[in-house]
């Protein structure tokens, strides 16, 4: 009906010969009504008065509605499919379920149907034999053709037609929509024919698509229905609305895209050339700014279709995914460690400092906790009393620098071992005015050793010389670098190294014996240390640490810190953990029960780590680095084998130290029982850090 152009004459098939004049003066609706009565044997008037409701509501009843007298229209008995097949007229029957009656198509109707199917006009008379109306003739008239004022009804859609079509559409299954529309377009002017066709469709003369039959009423929904509020929406619909991702907006056009852009947007000749030569993918913009005087001079945009297509293609092919923003709280990435406040006491502030007369290379704290020995550059060992750091004694052991010093681990003696030049010197500090009488007696006894003497030279690698009650010197073949006492206080191990190689020797003080048990490992030994309770020795070469069982004389383990150069080694008092400092800025914690790889690698320094030490009693360790800082950490070891060690960095000490960062701390020592840390370096300063606050 929408296609019904206002003003155009409505021509009925049956009166194709009717001319303009006739149509003008008659009501179209009346005309059609008359036609229907004429054509259709049965009246189009509804017998059923149920009104405008779906007939399926009566499905459960034996009647299908009420007639005009108010009586039930009893559902007629339908023929069985077999009867239908047997009926010779079955093919021309159409069932009107609303009125429960069967319509029999007349020959004329059948003719129309067959014409429709053949794609011809429905009216036989319209075909080819119309009289040619000479609407325009060669003869030029002076006056216009007589044309009376057109009535309004020609401009308004016919209500009658609308009612008719609506009625049809209502009862149609959805699949007929496509057919109906096409038919409507063609036969809009002949509603009667449409109704007939509808009836034909019902009769099964027009074949349904298979799919439509399958889904049936599923398709009969109102596509344009508006749902206003969300309450009516089902949950899935609501969810879909929530999850709907809108297409990304296209960027708005800029000045360059104007039809009359400012001059600065216009490309120069060279730019234009470059643009044209470039591959379409390489171009910065997909257009060239062009200037037009006026909008009407703007030609059609040549790539419009292509751009639209590409846009659609982009929208279609690019999967729109709601981007889940990864919300990670930075705090959560940090492992949960206890607060340093809970792990007190630990050293945090400088409590005292003292200046040594010459640069300090190594320090060691006496196990009784009163004297600190500092190995100095000028061949002296200086002794400082704690906590005032008063230099109580100094002793020139050698002409060369003392590179390492270590106190004998027995608390009642004041005996130390030091490395200087090619010698390991064991000195009795009591002879220099340290300690009590009792200390002096014990120290002398330790230094004197057993009365042997005959087999002194047997199996001796070093050359022993001694000064009564004062010192014992062991001359090695190479330059002594490192010395470590066994916890028993009788054995000590030394590392000697020069350009030709290195050797690890084990000395026995009481017997004045030296041995070199490790012929092979001497390649590049750096540091040596004894196990605090078992007969093990740890020898660190440049890149790995070997653990030997001295009793069985076998290699127990080889630890791989993955470092290039090991600088220091510290064994935990329990003996199961090892702290390895390296020159490549790493501090490795080994759990000997776990594996031969580090349990934890701590990278807390920017430069080489010189030394790292465990506290002998408290769960603390510290390391000092060339970057000028000392890091005090908590290292708790549990007796429970299943629980790994807890490592918490506590305090980075970098203030209050010397001005030259490199010289801030190169060596450190712990007090044996208190949380006190001593550091020293080549700047001659010795610092004592204690637990303040």
């Amino acid at each position, binding site marked *: 009906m929408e296609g019904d152009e206002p003003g155009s004459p409505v021509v009925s098939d049956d009166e194709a010969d009717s001319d303009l004049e006739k149509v003008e003066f008659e009501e179209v609706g009346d005309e059609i009504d008359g036609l229907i009565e004429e054509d259709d044997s049965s009246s189009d008037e509804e017998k059923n008065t149920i009104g405008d409701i779906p007939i399926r509501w009566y499905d459960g009843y034996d009647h299908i509605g009420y007639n005009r007298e108010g009586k039930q229209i009893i559902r007629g008995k339908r023929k069985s499919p077999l009867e239908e097949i047997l009926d010779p007229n079955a093919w021309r029957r159409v069932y009107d379920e609303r009125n429960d009656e069967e319509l029999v198509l007349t020959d004329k109707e059948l003719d129309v149907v067959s014409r429709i199917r053949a794609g011809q006009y429905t009216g036989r008379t319209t075909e080819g034999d119309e009289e040619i109306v000479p609407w325009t003739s060669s003869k030029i008239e002076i006056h216009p053709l007589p044309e009376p004022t057109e009535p309004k009804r020609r401009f308004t859609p016919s209500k009658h037609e609308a009612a008719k079509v609506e009625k049809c559409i209502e009862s149609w299954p959805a699949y007929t929509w496509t057919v109906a529309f096409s038919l409507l377009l063609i036969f809009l002017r002949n509603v009667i024919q449409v109704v007939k066709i509808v009836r034909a469709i019902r009769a099964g003369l027009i074949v349904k698509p298979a799919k439509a039959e399958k889904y049936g009423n599923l398709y009969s929904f109102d596509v344009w229905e508006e749902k206003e509020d969300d309450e009516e929406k089902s949950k899935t619909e609501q969810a879909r609305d929530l999850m709907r991702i809108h297409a990304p907006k296209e960027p708005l056009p800029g000045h360059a895209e104007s039809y009359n852009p400012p001059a600065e947007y216009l490309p120069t000749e060279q730019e234009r050339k470059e643009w044209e030569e470039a591959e379409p993918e390489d171009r910065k913009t997909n257009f060239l700014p062009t200037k037009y005087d006026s909008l009407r001079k703007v030609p059609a945009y040549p790539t419009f279709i292509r751009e639209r297509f590409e846009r659609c293609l982009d929208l279609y092919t690019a999967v729109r995914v709601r981007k889940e923003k990864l919300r990670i709280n930075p705090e959560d990435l940090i492992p949960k460690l206890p607060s340093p406040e809970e792990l*007190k*006491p630990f050293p945090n*502030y*400088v*409590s*005292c*400092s003292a*200046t040594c007369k010459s640069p300090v290379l190594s320090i060691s704290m006496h196990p*009784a*906790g*009163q004297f600190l020995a500092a190995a100095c550059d000028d061949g002296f060992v200086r002794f400082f*009393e704690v*906590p*005032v750091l*008063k230099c*109580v004694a100094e002793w020139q052991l050698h002409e060369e620098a003392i590179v390492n010093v270590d106190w004998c681990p027995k608390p009642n003696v004041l005996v130390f071992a030091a490395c200087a030049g090619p010698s390991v010197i064991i000195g009795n500090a009591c002879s220099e*005015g*340290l*300690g*009590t*009488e*009792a*200390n002096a*007696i014990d120290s002398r006894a330790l230094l004197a050793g057993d009365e042997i003497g005959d087999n002194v030279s047997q199996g001796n690698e070093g050359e022993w010389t001694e000064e009564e009650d004062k010192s014992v010197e062991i001359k090695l073949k190479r330059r002594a670098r490192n010395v470590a006492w066994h916890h028993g206080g009788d054995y000590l191990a030394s590392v000697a190294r020069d350009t030709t190689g290195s050797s690890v020797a084990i000395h026995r003080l009481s017997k004045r014996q030296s041995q070199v048990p490790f012929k092979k490992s001497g390649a590049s030994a750096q540091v040596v240390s004894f196990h605090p309770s078992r007969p093990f020795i740890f020898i660190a070469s440049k890149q790995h640490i070997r653990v030997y069982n001295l009793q069985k004389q076998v290699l127990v383990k080889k630890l791989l810190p993955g470092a290039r150069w090991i600088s220091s080694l510290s064994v935990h008092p329990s003996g199961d953990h090892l702290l390895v400092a390296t020159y490549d800025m790493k501090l490795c914690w080994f759990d000997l029960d776990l594996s031969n790889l580090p349990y934890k690698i701590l990278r807390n320094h920017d430069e080489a780590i010189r030394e790292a030490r465990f506290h002998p009693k408290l769960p603390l360790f510290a390391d000092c680095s060339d970057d000028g800082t000392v890091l005090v950490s908590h290292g708790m070891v549990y007796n429970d084998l299943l629980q790994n060690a807890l490592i918490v960095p506590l305090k980075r000490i970098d203030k209050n130290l010397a001005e030259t960062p490199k010289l801030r701390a190169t060596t450190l020592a712990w007090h044996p*029982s*208190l*949380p*006190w840390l001593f550091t020293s370096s080549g700047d001659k300063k010795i610092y*004592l850090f*204690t*637990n*303040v*606050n």
Partner: protein
Amino acid sequence: MDGSSEVRVRFTTRLEDEKLGVGSGVELVVPGSVKRKGLNEIMIQILGLGEGDQANFEFLVHGALLRGELGKLCVQKGFSVEKTVEVEYSLRGKPVRAEEEAIDLDDWVCCVDSLKTEDGGCIFACGTYSGNLKIIEGGAVVSETRISERAVKSVNWTSRSRLVAAGADGFLRSFEVTKSFKLRQVLIGSCAGVEPFESTVSVGKDRIAGGTSTGSLVIFETSRESNELLSEIRNVKRPRASYEDVIRAVPSRVLEGHSLSVTSLAYDNDKLFSGSWDGTVIEWEAETAQRIRTIPTTMKAVTSVSVSSQLVAASCTDGALRILDFRADSSTPVVSVRRAHRAVANSTKWRPDHEHEVASTGSDSAVRVWDIRAKLGVMFKRTQAHGEDGRGLCLSWCGGSKLASGGSDGVLRVFTFV
């Protein structure tokens, strides 16, 4: 109540001077923002003093010296607005100035103890790191002896003519000082071979207590007859030939309580207090040698203790000065100054006859006298008393006006307060 509100005060005093005692009982309303100087002016007006008198008053509000605004102090103390605040006024001591006297000694001064003579003079006994024991009277060393190669760690007068010195070599030596200040070795108290002790000594009535570096205390009873001691000593192995002619004594008691080196001892009537590196102060019954109480000072090693009427001042390695009250139940310090010294606080001593004042010295080279009523406001201070990079190591009061301090510059400095 804040600084802008008013405070009702009633003045009291203990001054016996008739002229100055007039102000007692006077009630006034003063602004809360008034400070000591303001109250001082009010007081001068009340008393009607002329400008020539230049009276200077100190005000005590419930045991706290007024410093800053009165209103704020009242808020701190939690007084209600309606309450009349009792303010005790007393004459302010003149600004503490000290005349300084320096006596050169040869090495770091480890310990000092003073003895007041009958004529008001002071005799100081000093021990140095080089092992010398020196007697100083009238600003000069009158007598000295070298008692060992090790430092003299502690010295204490036992009577007018005797003193005890603890050496780092592990011996307690008792000396008799004759009139000519000639030192004569009379007794060596030792437990040689058993425990080395070296750190400290303190003298009580008929008793000498020594602390050892292993954490035990040894008590010697001086009242016992020397021949009795002799018989005891015959079985003891003698460590050194040079002391053979000297009577040796074994301790009558060994007290175990500390886990680390005992650094300081102090007798107070029948109580003995000991401070140790293990961070505790222990109160002992002197007679029975029973441990009464232990007060920990939060793992900070104690370097020195001093006792005055059950208040124990303890200096700690973190530079703090803690005042512990052994009569109270709680173990937290009554007052504590966190940073009394910027380095290790080495020594502390209560000022005799001044129950609120305590002196301290530390490795930051400063000597300070604190008043504990004003949250330890400094009464007197001498920074760098022992040189720029020095350490103050020991203190001793001689009477209430002389304070001797020894340090790393090898000088005994005597401050005389005027």
